[in-house]
């Protein structure tokens, strides 16, 4: 026991004595916040993203690699609104890092800085995988990204005051370019206003609100519940009365249900990248929306 304790102590001492690194270590739970932190932090941040665009963000495990990253993080950038409830609390509790616990400056929740939609009026698991705070998939509206960027830049500056000016100037540059890009996307998407669509999962609420699309129905009978043949038949009946242009799904979702309905209803099945890395074109946040707009416009034809 003495030997173990001594070894532990020596190893710990060596790490504490090592000179602090210049860069902030950031653990982002999902790719959009990883990309945003990189855009705002440049080379003064060292970003690790816990999940990829091909992973269902609701079903992530508290993997050892994530605990190791949370241990070293100066900042955890999460979505919040219970999107990460299945793994992040456990990872943070096991990481032994008080800096990034909820309530500390090192813990950032994006959903705290935007207005959430679809806040349930009643909470009952019979309604499926409902999030009490509202729909957490805020990144599908670029205006939300701008809001989060503003708060995140301020947080980075707070945690790393030495580089505060750099964060601020990078934020200014980002906001300017981003706003111009939004204006451009809105121009492109003007024709999408009022276009009726189906969604596979209620993952695009903010995109739909932004572009003025009309969500007629969802393929999942309830949020997070696998589409059933019975429910798909109902949806099919609905869209025969109320025709839609396309059915959209996120890159991480299986295309079975979308294809099933697309074939029968003769509509377009559109895969959207959903977040950075969802397809080859969505390399960064700009690419994400460039590609999303292209795919939507193609699907609406």
């Amino acid at each position, binding site marked *: *026991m003495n030997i*173990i*304790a001594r070894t*532990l102590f020596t190893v*710990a001492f060596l790490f*504490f004595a090592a000179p602090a690194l210049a860069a902030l270590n950031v653990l982002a739970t999902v790719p959009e916040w990883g990309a945003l932190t990189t855009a705002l932090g440049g080379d003064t941040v060292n970003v690790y993203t816990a*999940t*990829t665009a*091909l*992973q*269902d963000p609701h*079903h992530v*495990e*508290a*993997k*050892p*690699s994530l*605990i*190791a*990253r949370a*241990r*070293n993080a100066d900042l955890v950038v999460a979505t919040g609104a*219970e999107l990460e*409830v*299945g*793994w*992040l*609390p*456990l990872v943070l*509790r*096991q*990481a*032994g*890092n*008080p*800096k990034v*616990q909820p309530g500390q400056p090192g813990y950032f929740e994006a959903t*705290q*800085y935007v*207005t*959430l939609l679809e*806040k349930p009026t009643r909470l009952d*698991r019979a309604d*499926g*995988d409902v999030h009490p705070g509202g729909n957490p998939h805020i990144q599908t509206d670029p*205006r939300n990204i*701008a*809001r989060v*960027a*503003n*708060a995140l830049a301020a947080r980075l500056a707070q945690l790393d005051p030495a580089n505060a000016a750099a964060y601020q100037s990078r934020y200014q540059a980002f*906001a300017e370019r981003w*706003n111009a890009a*939004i204006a451009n996307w*809105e121009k492109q998407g003007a024709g999408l206003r009022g276009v009726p669509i189906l969604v596979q999962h209620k993952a695009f609420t903010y995109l739909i*609100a932004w572009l003025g699309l009309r969500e007629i129905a969802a393929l999942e009978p309830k949020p*997070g519940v*696998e589409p059933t043949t019975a429910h798909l038949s109902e949806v099919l009946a609905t869209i025969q009365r109320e025709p839609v242009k396309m059915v959209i799904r996120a890159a*991480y979702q*299986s295309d079975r249900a979308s294809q099933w309905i697309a074939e029968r209803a003769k509509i377009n099945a559109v895969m959207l990248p959903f977040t950075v890395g969802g397809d080859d074109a969505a390399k960064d946040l700009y690419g994400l929306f460039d590609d999303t707009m292209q795919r939507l416009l193609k699907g609406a034809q």
Partner: protein
Amino acid sequence: MWKSIGAAGAFALALSLPPNAQAATDAELAEIREQIRQLKESYEARIQALEQRLKDAEARSAAVPATATPSTTVAAAPAATDAATPAPPSSGISAFNPAISAVLQGVYANLSQDPNKYAIHGFVPSGDIAPAKRGFSIAESELAMSANVDDKIFGNLIFSLSPDNTVEVEEAYGVLTAIPGGFTPKFGRFLSSIGYLNSQHQHTWDFYDAPLPYQAFLGGQFRSDGLQLKWIAPTDLFVELGAEVGDGASFPGTDRNRNGIGDFAAYAHLGGDIGASHSWRAGVSYLGLKPRNREYLQTDIAGNDAQLNFSGRSDLVIADFVWKYAPNGNARETNFKLQGEYFWRRESGDLTYDSNNAIGLLNASSYSSRQSGWYVDGVYQFMPQWRIGARYDRLAPGRVDYGSNGAYLASSGFDPQRYSVMLDWTPSEFSRFRVQWQQSKLRPDATDNEIFIQYILTLGAHGAHQY
């Protein structure tokens, strides 16, 4: 409000008065009528006010999506930051209630052997490890409460409610959350973090029952009342070192009625990812205890059930690994999990044969044993919600040196083993139904064919599952 209820109560009392109350005068009757009228009016007014408030609240919540439609320009973005300050979740006396969750379980068991005679041949009986009773029964239910105690401590309490109507404190511990440097101290009663499966609650297991080595060497799972210190290395590779001290009262230990430390455990776990699709964890653990007067029954050479009494030390080493695969890391559609653990235990000390002298041959001698066991299982989710799994468990009774007790006791040459397969359906994150078939050869003279049909329901706070 209370006054009105008091009035209503008085009125109810008045109605129930015995017949001689009919002697009441007209004046009294009029007074009662007046009181009823007042009561009615006051309640009607209140109900109307409540209805109005409800309407207002509904209108407000319906209006939220409309007013929340974001502006089309981003110039307002910085302002939105201030506007979106989260509201406190609720107020009043219940606002700080801990997160509460419950697990309900039940099983239908079809066993070809009598579960009351369940024993693993050649191994010291380790306590309550028999499968469920035959037929229908509820399995262990669980009630858990957790919350941050203050800015430095997280607390967790888990009751387990047994089908025989006993309540047990399964875990009750505090965790210091504000210690820097990767240290996580825990104190109280907790499942030890030795091995892989030991710290996981039964309802999260991939099979109905614990693997044979867990049953034989730890009596299911090892927990103690004590202290734990874990340390995570500041490396990208997951390196966890941990040590525990405790009372050592649960199997293979005994309640010692002594000051000081009853058990000591230490472990190292490594883990990481290989690409996006693979993740793994592996480790070695040590558990040392000093059982005192551990009494149990064992059949001797002559066929008598002799009472034995052991005092000495018990050292257990566990090597564990788990590997998980999901295409692109997306476990929603399909995934595969492979896990295995190897146990090795040495016990040495003094063993008293026929310690209650029931046979009349009381004899004390030295004792030592070296025994081992292992299991490996694989679980494959072949489509959303559906998984199949297979498991193989095997124990090696090893060498047992009974000293002079060898005149009465023989060591076993039989390797207990078990084959299991299971299929489970998980309609949501909160429910699971499982059917498991297994063949256990735990005694040379009996093979048990077992079928379990099990349900696991989780309600309340959304729990997070360990890796």
